[in-house]
């Protein structure tokens, strides 16, 4: 049974058209002009219990909007969404008791209180039995190394400390699903690492389903075996990170270096892109092709000195992809 299932989910926002200047402001008081923004556009996926899924996409792709719909604080305009077997927004309170949510940009801790007191309030809000609360508190404090500041008021904490506290707070009531909207935003490398290791462990050891949005591919590499990529509200890719490369049409490069120029070479398994004589660059068209296939096809008799296979950097692939998209958008 899927823990989350989305079928053709859409969300359209109506933004009142703003005209600039005073006259515009007055005019907009009377005219009911709206621009429609389709933030989520026909997204479908299912997530099984215990999965860890990374939700990736450029700014404005509709990631936060999707998280808000799954947590029940936004209603989809169309499509069906089911979380733990329920429609999230119409079962907001029941849903809220079984999920944990962290918004990287918005604190849920009580600003003036020590972290411990915020945690204690959550014990009341979620009605957590005292022994389980104590056990979870000890475990989370140790794992996230919060002992040093758990008694300090939240307003005195660094961003990294606060984020760890936010995540711990979202897990105190043993939620079945943990949603995180950009949990590593603004953190330094060390803090990012702590958070990533922790989330991966929670997912592995406690079986908590994790859905997180991010701009940072390392988050996905270290926490999420599965990646969902969206852009402009639409689903682009759903699968393992290592398959993303070919899905985006990016190919591996193969460089063959010869002792002496063997002359022109044409292969079925790889095609030549640059020929520098003794050094030749090929692109591998298929993910399935191995170096061995190429070398077998090439056969012996060449003075082959070195073989180098280059995996394109996935960040690079995505950057190129975004850039091409922007250019495509500009061109008529």
């Amino acid at each position, binding site marked *: 049974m899927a823990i989350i299932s989305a079928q053709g989910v859409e969300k359209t926002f109506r933004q009142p058209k703003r005209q600039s200047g005073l006259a515009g402001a007055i005019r907009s008081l009377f005219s009911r002009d709206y621009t429609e923004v389709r933030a989520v556009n026909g997204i479908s996926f299912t997530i099984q219990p215990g999965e860890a899924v990374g939700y990736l996409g450029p700014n404005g792709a509709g990631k936060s*909007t999707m998280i808000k719909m799954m947590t029940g604080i936004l209603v989809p305009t169309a499509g069906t969404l089911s979380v733990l077997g329920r429609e999230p927004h119409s079962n907001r309170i029941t849903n809220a*008791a079984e999920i944990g949510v962290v918004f990287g940009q918005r604190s849920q801790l009580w600003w003036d209180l020590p972290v411990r007191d915020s945690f204690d*309030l959550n014990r009341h809000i979620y009605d957590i039995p005292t022994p389980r609360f104590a056990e979870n508190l000890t475990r989370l404090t140790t794992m996230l190394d919060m002992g040093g500041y758990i008694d300090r008021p939240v307003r005195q904490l660094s961003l990294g400390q606060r984020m760890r506290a936010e995540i711990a707070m979202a897990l105190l009531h043993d939620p079945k699903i943990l949603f995180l909207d950009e949990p590593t935003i603004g953190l330094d490398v060390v803090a990012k690492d702590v958070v990533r290791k922790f989330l991966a462990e929670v997912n592995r050891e406690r079986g908590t389903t994790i859905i997180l949005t991010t701009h940072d591919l390392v988050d996905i590499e270290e926490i999420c075996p599965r990646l969902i990529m969206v852009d402009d509200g639409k689903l682009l890719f759903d699968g393992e990170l290592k398959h993303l490369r070919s899905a985006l049409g990016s190919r591996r490069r193969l460089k063959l270096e010869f002792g002496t120029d063997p002359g022109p070479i044409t292969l079925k398994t790889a095609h030549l892109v640059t020929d520098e004589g003794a050094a030749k660059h090929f692109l591998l068209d298929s993910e399935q092709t191995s170096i061995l296939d190429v070398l077998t096809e090439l056969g012996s008799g060449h003075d082959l000195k070195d073989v180098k296979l280059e995996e394109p950097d996935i960040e690079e692939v995505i950057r190129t992809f975004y850039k091409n998209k922007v250019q495509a958008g500009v061109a008529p």
Partner: protein
Amino acid sequence: MKLAAYPAFTATAFQSRLAYRNQVWSGVFGELVFMFARIAIWTSVFSTVASDSVDGVTLPQMITYALLAGPVLYWDYSRLLRDVGTAVKSGDIAVYLLKPLLYPAYMLANHTGNFLFDLLTVTVPVAIIIGFTVGLVPPASLFHGLAFLPFWALSFGMLFLLTTILGLAAFWLMTADSLDWFFNSIMTLLAGGIVPLWFFPGWLAAIAGNLPFAWVSYYPAAIYIGQLDPSQALTAFIIGLVWFAVLLGVLLWLWAKARHRLIVQGG
């Protein structure tokens, strides 16, 4: 919903205020200045008339009225207004939708914590200081003393409802600051916080006496000093309860609308 959570919010609000306990002194000082200004005004008003009572009210009674209608009953609601207004404008209000709780009930619990804190640190000290320096009168009778308590509770509830309704209005108006100013003017006049309703021209007293604001300051304070007899007090209390029910309905309706807007339009 977990009922035990609400007293915990009350305790938390109280505790949060302890973090800013330096502000207590300015609170006490401000209320004292305010009280002594009123005392000076009423003293000079009373010195211009020959008898020692005006409309059957003596100067000590008037000073007691001023203390009750001011610091005791019409206490600092602006914190609540600001909290609700800011939560609406910043969108933080969505965070409350993520928790299994009812936002207006959460605000009430919070408000109660602030009320208790102000009562202990500002209201009671100010009452004691005024009592010892200027003098205050006891309730007009045992009945009036006892009747003051339910009226006080109603006043607390009424101020909470009026303020929260106003705060939620920020959803549509997006300007809680000018609302604060507007509300304060209305309250100053219609609640009888500065000038009791019996000094109003008849028609204005009739209007103000039937609007919910009067239950915040005027009725409880007037009962305490014995301006209403038992049957008038009972009638006033019943009308007050009706207003309370109406405003509670308005608040819940507004909250439902606000929540709908929040989950459909995203704030």
